[in-house]
């Protein structure tokens, strides 16, 4: 029993991380219909920012996280302005090719500067170890992860539902043409949302070093997971991606724990089944 709870807990921690990284992708795919296979590269950039800040500059781990957010958001903003924007109305194939190209470049760049080995990660003492609760042992860091994501989600939820910017984003996702007609600067909304999403991915990448690992193949390794959260979760809500990410996280951890010989098979099979059952996402709102 304690074991099952432990697996569930780890799955939720993993899922919340997936959610954090994928949220930006949900905006990209939902708002602009852009199939962005390079989203994982932003998470990787965040991860490497954290590692560099820790090892080269000696900044403590928690303080590197805002840095990861800012750096990746800036990278995202620049790429959006000069490259992504030009392809919003292009076909799906162009977007796929472009983002694969970007992914390859990011992998090669990371390999060039950091080599292809796993990056070392040293958590501060107070985030290490385990605590005992209700008859199960839980990792302190994973609990921290879940809490962080809950707080961030609350903030984002507030941002989306109670601010002017949030209304503009939701309006643009629902119907970009009508939103334009109402005088919303959809392009600008999207630029900001893209930067924000990239930043969140970077933050997730930094937070995730301990759980997902970090090496130069990161963008390809987790590409499917991020895409999956968005496709299964549906676009335009926070609720959908949360549910999808938690579901995937728990499924993946449980699969690896209980049937290790099957491995990642579980997640890919689940993906195809979910796509068949919910072609418009769990809380389907697909145009």
């Amino acid at each position, binding site marked *: 029993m304690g074991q099952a709870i432990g697996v569930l807990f780890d799955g939720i921690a993993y899922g919340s991380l997936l959610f954090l990284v994928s949220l930006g992708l949900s905006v990209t795919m939902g708002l602009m219909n852009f199939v962005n296979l390079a989203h994982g590269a932003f998470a990787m950039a965040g991860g490497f920012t954290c590692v560099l800040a820790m090892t080269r500059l000696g900044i403590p781990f928690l303080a590197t996280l805002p840095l990861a957010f800012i750096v990746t958001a800036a990278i995202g903003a620049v790429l959006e302005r000069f490259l992504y924007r030009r392809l919003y109305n292009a076909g799906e194939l162009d977007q796929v*090719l472009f983002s694969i190209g970007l992914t390859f*470049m990011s992998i090669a760049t990371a390999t060039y500067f950091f080599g292809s080995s796993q990056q070392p990660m040293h958590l501060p003492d107070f985030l290490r170890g385990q605590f005992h609760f209700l008859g199960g042992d839980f990792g302190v860091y994973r609990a921290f992860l879940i809490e962080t994501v809950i707080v961030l989600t609350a903030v984002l939820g507030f941002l989306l539902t109670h601010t002017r910017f949030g209304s503009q984003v939701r309006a643009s996702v629902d119907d970009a043409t009508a939103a334009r007609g109402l005088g919303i600067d959809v392009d600008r909304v999207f630029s900001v949302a893209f930067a924000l999403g990239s930043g969140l991915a970077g933050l997730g990448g930094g937070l995730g070093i301990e759980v997902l690992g970090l090496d130069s193949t990161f963008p390809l390794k987790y590409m499917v997971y991020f895409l999956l959260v968005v496709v299964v979760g549906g676009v335009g809500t926070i609720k959908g991606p949360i549910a999808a990410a938690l579901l995937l996280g728990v499924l993946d951890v449980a699969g690896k724990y209980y049937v290790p010989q099957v491995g990642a098979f579980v997640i890919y099979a689940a993906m195809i089944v979910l796509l068949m059952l919910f072609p418009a996402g769990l809380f389907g709102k697909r145009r």
Partner: protein
Amino acid sequence: MKPGSRAVEIVFWLLPLAAFFLLPGYLVLGSQILIVSLFAMSLDLLLGYAGIVSLGHAAFFGLGAYTAGLLAAHGWGEPLTGLVAAAASAAIFGFVVSFLVVRGEDLARLMVTLGVGLLMFEAANRAAFITGGVDGLSGVTMWKLFGVFPFDLSGRTAFLYAYAVLLAAFLLLRRVVNSPFGLSLRGVRENRRRMAAIGSPVNRRLVAIFTLGAGVAGIAGALLAQTTQFVGLDTLGFERSADLLIMLVLGGTGRLYGAVVGTLVFMVAQDYLSGINPVYWQFWLGMLLVLFVFFARGGILGAAEALWKRR
């Protein structure tokens, strides 16, 4: 068909034979190029004619490779029947998968092909007792082709074998894409709804072409297994699917020849550049893709055609 293009075509198909005699040191690379060209051609059926973007086409290539490889490793090393078996298994699997692919919209379709590719990779990886897992399938021993020509280290048989299969497949596929069936596929690519409105059974067409594309990919995979007498997990990998997409787009989609030209340029560049440094190769490949998307959408042949028309 334009006058004079027949002569160009004949010259084009004589080039590999010229290479066979003039560049005996490059026969192994040459057969790889021929095989991957066939693979790229199979993707062109889906992408260039039916407009299906697939990120998991390697699933069928790998399935064909493992089918032929396993047959040969377990005592049936006859090449041609191996090809047929590989084509059949890949086509059957393609037929099954096609229903999943046809069902969804663009994005879901992309994800399904990606998922199927990854699923096959994991399956082969986990079923190491059959496939050899990460070590690859070894012990593939081929019989002599027609009982006469051995697959030896010089690669002469392999090259001519791959060439003959590619040419035969090309002639067949050209018939297919120029038939009314091929025309209806192009119609689906351009406007799916309108094709449905004028009474074309869109989904049946897509199922048919997906099955055919999968079968041809299976043949290409089998050729690779038979000529190298080895099957590695990378035959199923995502990077193979992605590279393939790149080669095809590089050459130009929807013209069959683009598959061959793109593969040739890609693989020669890869051979040369990754010999210098594999990391550089990946970087420049990525850069090339981005540039291509922005500046040269028709690929090499598309650009050539534009130049030709401008004269």
